[in-house]
């Protein structure tokens, strides 16, 4: 990192302001980050049957995520192979028989194979797989469908599970929560007028907690000290003595997830899975944030609150539980939106500074610079 010569040892430089405002930087991030890495796209339960689909923006590409007739998740570029029309423009839906382009009726089955088109039998030299939809690599993990647009996807075990190991020390500590087996209790979508990196940086530190998160700091008193759980390895922030659950008023939460260890009880853990996922674990629920960066200054965040299936099926009241992190989200995203306009200020051209409890964000900045400066990148 290029440190201005005058910086005292307590401070580390952030990225320069242009990293948060330059559309050229964002385009490179799309190519070398979002279109090259594993990207958490869709909750698996949002694709309940073959033909159910979601369209998601991954970098600069629209991706159609669906389920084949054998029940396995599939993902394709949402682009007709004939003249390029977008196959589906809705965010979600259910195809009855096939995906049919509304322009010339090229028709693809749920495996992406071209099954019909006008005059197709008169073109016996047109291979139905070759001219099928272009496949995207898919993995199901934590009850989510992850996609990767790279022609040769990086190792899921190293890249994605590696982030879990880095933060928690091992993957078993996350497996205990059986995130794939939990049910969606609530989803809130936030349209945030800020660069995606501001949201990541905000999530990584807790220097701001005592100032903007009064409810969270009440539940997790150590957060007033400014050190986020993510500053450490394998550390969960302990609930306050009077706190009965991870709720907006510290009242009782929902049923505890049975697989967690005793030492995971009454604690909050957080993981950042670069580039766009946050996982938050507490004894009775797991909160998963998925970011969808849409422009250099706009990021949609979908936040899922996941509980034991019996809690959701019984219609138990999860509102106080949801309200705590919903407030945290709004407080955080307000802060990010307050910061974004200043990124183009001449006074921020060289960036700002990180205090000691934020120094680990410097590793994230090094990582971003590394991805952007890599030779050719492996994006298609």
């Amino acid at each position: 990192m290029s440190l201005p010569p005058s910086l005292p040892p307590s401070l580390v430089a952030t990225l320069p302001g242009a990293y948060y405002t330059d559309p050229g930087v964002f385009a490179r991030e799309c190519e070398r980050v979002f279109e090259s890495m594993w990207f958490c796209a869709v909750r698996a339960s949002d694709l309940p049957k073959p033909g159910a689909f979601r369209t998601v923006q991954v970098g600069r590409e629209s991706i159609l995520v669906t389920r084949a007739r054998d029940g396995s998740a599939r993902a394709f570029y949402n682009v007709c192979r004939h003249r390029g029309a977008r196959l589906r423009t809705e965010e979600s839906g259910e195809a009855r028989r096939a995906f049919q382009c509304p322009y010339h009726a090229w028709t693809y089955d749920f495996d992406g194979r071209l099954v019909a088109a006008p005059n197709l039998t008169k073109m016996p030299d047109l291979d139905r797989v070759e001219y099928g939809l272009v496949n995207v690599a898919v993995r199901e993990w934590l009850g989510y469908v992850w996609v990767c647009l790279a022609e040769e996807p990086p190792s899921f075990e190293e890249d994605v599970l590696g982030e879990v190991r880095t933060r928690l020390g091992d993957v078993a500590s996350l497996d205990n929560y059986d995130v794939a087996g939990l049910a969606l209790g609530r989803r809130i979508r936030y349209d945030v007028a800020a660069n995606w990196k501001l949201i990541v940086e905000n999530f990584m530190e807790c220097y701001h907690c005592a100032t903007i998160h009064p409810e969270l700091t009440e539940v997790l008193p150590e957060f007033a000290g400014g050190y986020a759980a993510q500053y450490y390895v394998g550390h969960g922030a302990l609930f306050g003595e009077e706190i009965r659950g991870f709720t907006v008023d510290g009242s009782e939460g929902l049923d505890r997830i049975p697989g967690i260890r005793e030492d995971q009880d009454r604690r909050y853990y957080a993981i950042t899975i670069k580039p766009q996922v946050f996982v938050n674990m507490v004894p009775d629920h797991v909160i998963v944030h998925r970011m969808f960066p849409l422009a250099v200054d706009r990021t949609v965040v979908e936040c899922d609150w996941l509980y034991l299936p019996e809690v959701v099926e019984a219609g138990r009241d999860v509102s106080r539980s949801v309200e705590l992190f919903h407030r945290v989200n709004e407080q955080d995203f307000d802060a990010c939106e307050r910061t974004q306009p200043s990124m183009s200020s001449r006074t921020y051209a060289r960036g700002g500074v990180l205090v000691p409890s934020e120094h680990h964000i410097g590793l994230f900045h090094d990582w971003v610079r590394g991805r952007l400066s890599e030779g050719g990148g492996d994006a298609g």
Partner: protein
Amino acid sequence: MIPVCPLRSLPRGEAFRLDADPPIAVFHTEDGEIYAIDDTCTHQDASLADGWLEGCEVECPLHASRFDLRTGKVDSPPAKLPVRTHTVVVEADTIYVIPSQEPRP
């Protein structure tokens, strides 16, 4: 009588496109019946053998008009004209069709 294919190579629920002039679609229904009709939809050039077989009907894969395999009649637009039906014979585990002598509608 034109040989189509061995009976065992056309499982129930599937179709075979016989590249005759004009082409013929042969269907083996889930109930075990075998039917043959003109392969080309009367609305636009689409192969009905690529369509969706349900009961005794096939739905055109392009615009969803449904043809009755027993009569060739179409249920709803955009296709308006029926397709012809052809006689199916199964002999010695081979499927044959006897093409209709009627003019195409």
